[in-house]
């Protein structure tokens, strides 16, 4: 791996960690429930980005499956929370 790519990967990992911290700030601050669900939505997308970045760092193909699983669980739980906010129950 060339030093330019190594530096870029370090920079990207730092940016993504900072971005997750900003999402955590909105998750704590958020005045209403829908703000917190939106912050959770942004947080899981940042986690998927971070895992793809780690997959490039370690050159391993199993990180892709972890990213796909986290995207799947994030979608299911985030849409369940949005449905709960809309209706007051998830399965009618």
């Amino acid at each position, binding site marked *: 791996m060339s030093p330019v790519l190594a530096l*870029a990967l370090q920079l990207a990992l730092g940016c993504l960690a900072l*971005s997750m911290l900003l999402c955590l*700030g909105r998750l704590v601050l958020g005045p209403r429930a829908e703000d917190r669900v*939106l*912050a959770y*939505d942004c947080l899981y997308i*940042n986690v998927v980005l971070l895992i793809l970045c780690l997959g*490039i760092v370690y*050159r391993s193909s199993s990180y892709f499956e972890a990213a796909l699983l986290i*995207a799947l669980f994030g979608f299911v739980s985030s849409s369940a929370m949005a449905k709960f906010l809309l209706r007051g129950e998830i399965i009618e």
Partner: protein
Amino acid sequence: MNVSPPQWLDALTAGLVVAGALAALIGSFGLLRLGKFFQRVHAPTLGATVGIWSLTLAMVAQMSFVGGQPYVHAFLVAIFIALTAPVTTVLLMRAALFRARLRGEPDVPLTAGDPPGPDQSPPRAR
């Protein structure tokens, strides 16, 4: 024996990775910075489009070279996020609009297409 990728491929990967991470950072900063929920809901889409696609392209480029064969199934992540992120956003927007109408906020339209006004009847609670 492991051959290191050519210089242009590493430069391309570095550019894509930094662009994607910066897009996600700008989206999260907007999520923290913007004032109202209906403005805030726009910000995370930056990470869900530019961030996911550029990092997926970078991973496909690197892993295709390292593995010696096309690594196209990493596109599944990008396609999955592209299909599901709008669904979550639309559900969340509907929930937020419903709750804002129940709270009786003045600047929220009561039905789609009608201008907001004080003389309309309050929405029916389902």
